[in-house]
């Protein structure tokens, strides 16, 4: 095992490239398929690897710079590996009106993770988001695909414990 320790890494790299290539090939045939392609790669890998933007570009007959431009334009896309789970705090006006400024200011202290960083042990990333469409019952927090309403600093830790898979 020990003498072969580089093999799994190599195999992983190869499989990342394969995922990118296959996904790109699948979407390149549909009109405007680049965004669906990037969404799927990120869903599969957790990020869009910079090293393989070229593979995407080739499939779509674009330059690597063009693909890079698209990836970096959108807030949703990441180019470095990230935790598979996310906690998003809504920081938009309707939530501000119902108390999200306090949540935004205190969340790092309560959860032990800064915005745009991954929690040291719990495998999630903390992010800001601007409106989740739950504006009548804010402050709103999204944990993975679930939205929670009327969240405050007191109720957040319990929510996170229940909703985040360790």
């Amino acid at each position: 095992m020990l003498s072969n320790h580089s093999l799994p890494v190599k195999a992983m790299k190869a499989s990342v490239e394969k995922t990118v290539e296959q996904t790109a090939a699948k979407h390149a045939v549909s009109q405007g398929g680049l965004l669906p392609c990037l969404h799927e790669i990120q869903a599969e890998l957790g990020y869009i690897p910079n090293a393989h933007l070229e593979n995407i570009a080739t499939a779509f007959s674009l330059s690597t710079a063009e693909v890079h431009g698209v990836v970096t334009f959108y807030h949703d896309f990441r180019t470095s590996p990230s935790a598979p789970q996310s906690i998003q705090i809504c920081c938009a006006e309707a939530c501000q009106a119902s108390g999200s400024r306090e949540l935004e200011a205190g969340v790092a202290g309560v959860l032990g993770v800064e915005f745009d960083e991954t929690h040291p042990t719990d495998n999630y990333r903390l992010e800001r988001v601007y409106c989740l469409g739950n504006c009548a019952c804010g402050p709103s927090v999204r944990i993975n695909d679930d939205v929670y309403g009327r969240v405050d600093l007191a109720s957040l830790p319990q929510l996170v414990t229940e909703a985040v898979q360790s």
Partner: protein
Amino acid sequence: MTITVYISQDTTAVAVGAERVATAFVQAALNAELNYTLVRNGSRGAFGLEPLIEIEMGAQGRLAFGPVSVADVPSLVTAITVGGYERHSNYLGPVSTIPWLENQTRITFKRCGEGAPTDLANYRALGGYRGLEHALTLSPQAIVDEIKVSGLRGRGGAAFPTGIKWQTVLDAQGEQKYIVCNADEGDSGTFADRLLMEADPYQLIEGMTISGLAVGATKGFIYLRSEYPRAQKMLERAIDVAMAEGYLGADLCRSGQRFELEVRMGAGSYICGEETALLNSLEGKRGVVRAKPPLPAIEGLFGKPTVVNNVLTLASVSSILADGGAEYARHGVDRSKGTMPLQLAGNTKNGGLVEVPFGVSLTIVINEWGGGTRSGRPVRAVQVGGPLGAYLSSDQLDVPLTYEALAGLGGMLGHGGIVVFDDTVDMAKQAHFAMDFCAKESCGKCTPCRIGAVRGREVLERVVDSTASSNDLILLRELCETMEQASLCAMGGLTPLPVKSAMDNFPEDFGVIDNQYEVAACTV
């Protein structure tokens, strides 16, 4: 006696506990050996009453209970099984008599909450697809004329007359045309699109199909923001069912006409709600705004003639074709025809969707529907029309909600969002947020917006930190003017609206160290 129980699966209903309540109900009903059918419906948008449980028993019609907590469920189930539900603390009476709903004029949202969102038979039973059936008997021009008669204006924000837009696309030459539904709903304080897509997705599908028949488009895209995963699932399921049942596809309703539909996800960019940025995004490009002309109606998606309409605009089309444009135009005032789905949000006791004819006053919505602030403190500011809308002060709230009246106050109705703030709000911070948001979300194409918002944010940082001078406020007004006059699109062009209205209506929050604000304000 058959009992049907309705518990919503809407995002907000679930966000305040509907899923846990549903689980508790199933358990309690099992214990009580209650025989019933559970329907997970969409929401009626009375979010102050969610989690809402509706129970249909025999002749009584649908009875409402809410807001129900998990702890309330066992006693509720007992009250239904043994009797005495009228005395249960959550009992609200028959659904049809809940004042919050009864006092609305529901046209676009009339079916929301009635049944399971993707149950096509139920949609039909409630009058769905009558509009399409009628449209299939009409010429394209006759469909467009019906929309013109209705007076319908775009609900996405700019309020452009829909009939005129469709006429342009109908008249445009092109083998391929497209219908694009703008479901980006980026405005904070708005959720009507989401609610509709989660509760009554067929209405949107029907409206888009009619739009396709009207202008000669065979393909439609729904551009949906990625913050709405539930709406995505609901739409995709509904499209599959409509396809299987022949309401979409190569030969819809055996008419020989084709219309296909696809959902495409956005990727977290506010500017992609602007129609030309949206089209670039759909094409797989950066969401940069395009200069107009050419209009999307002439050169839109992939360079082809394209209708771009908001979710609510397209959904309204199905009832306009079902009941006639004249019937729709009976509601509303002046050039604001029909009903407006308002969204009451922020610091409000009973927030949610309020569909009323244009012309109802803002104060009635905030007080009679909203029941005042959730915090119990006085209302100090209200932002109407999303992040690019004006902040109104408490003495401006008797304004009637029409496009014209809001414009008269220097504001806008936009997509109908109403965000209530109590007296703890710091308006300089709100103005700072508006500039910060613009700086973050600017597409970067033009300088007034790209640079102006950053400079504006810097000045407002000083105001918030109490280190600003009166010159700073003069500079801020100049920046606002430049942005208004020289920006390519409404992102840069309207960001000054919340900023200036905050300064004008709440000058006391914009203190400067040399105390010259009064002078500064006068000299500009």
